[in-house]
């Protein structure tokens, strides 16, 4: 692959560390160019590859296990009733 310009380099020329790049990716703040660059970067940087896989797995686990399910079915009705009560005062 031809040497890409690192899209993580900031306007003032600062080059972010691996950890900073990883955080931008994990926090889902990366542009398409940054994502692409990081994919190639991971292929040659074992610590980034390992960290990314662990953090990405944790994110998946969070998404699948940490939703409290649906709100109680009567909650919307209770809210509507309370608002109507307030309006009729």
């Amino acid at each position, binding site marked *: 692959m031809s040497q890409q310009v690192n899209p993580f380099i900031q306007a003032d020329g600062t080059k972010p*560390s691996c*950890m900073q790049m990883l*955080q931008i990716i*994990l*926090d*889902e*703040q990366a542009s398409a160019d940054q994502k692409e660059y990081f994919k190639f970067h991971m292929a040659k940087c074992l610590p980034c590859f390992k*960290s990314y*896989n*662990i*953090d990405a*797995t*944790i*994110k998946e*686990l*969070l*998404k699948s*296990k*940490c*939703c*409290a399910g*649906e*709100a*109680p079915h009567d*909650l*919307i009705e*209770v*809210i509507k009733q*309370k*608002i109507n009560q*307030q309006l009729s005062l």
Partner: protein
Amino acid sequence: MEDTQRISYTEKEKNEVFTNEFLPLIHSMYNFGYRLTLDRDDAKDLVQDTYMKAYRFIESFQTGTNAKAWLFRILKNSFINDYRKKSKEPSKVDYQEVETYYNSEDVDRQITPDLRVESLKDMMGDEISNALNSLEVDFRTVIILCDLEGFKYEEMAKILDIPIGTVRSRLHRARQLLKEKLSVYAKQMGYNN
């Protein structure tokens, strides 16, 4: 309410905004309330209270802007003002120290807990949920906003009334703490990491 620009809605428009933009977010709001209070009844009260406030202050909401971020901000403020006061005060001092530490230049030298993907994939029970719930509420909150709700830095900064740099550092620290907790669970499950 931070937004000073107020909009005059008719009663009909008010109800439309409330029904079409606010109410469909009830499940995300309830999950956020539950993850903050860690109690289903308290979460219900908090969400109710948030929607009441949202209705009362609906004129400071501009249609077409991010209703979810607007509602999450009200819920977070209600939690801090009404609920958190009743429960034990957070350990502000420890917390500040942690943030100062992160903001120093030593950040790359932090030790990452040694976790393995296989051990995480074996966590089929409540480990991840318990690990998240055990984090101090400010750390828990950024994980919820980013990883469960997909908010951007700028939106999180507005919801939490903190600078973007603090959002970033808090998220970094929260991820570290979460990994430390999960690493303890992995050891208990027999993984020697």
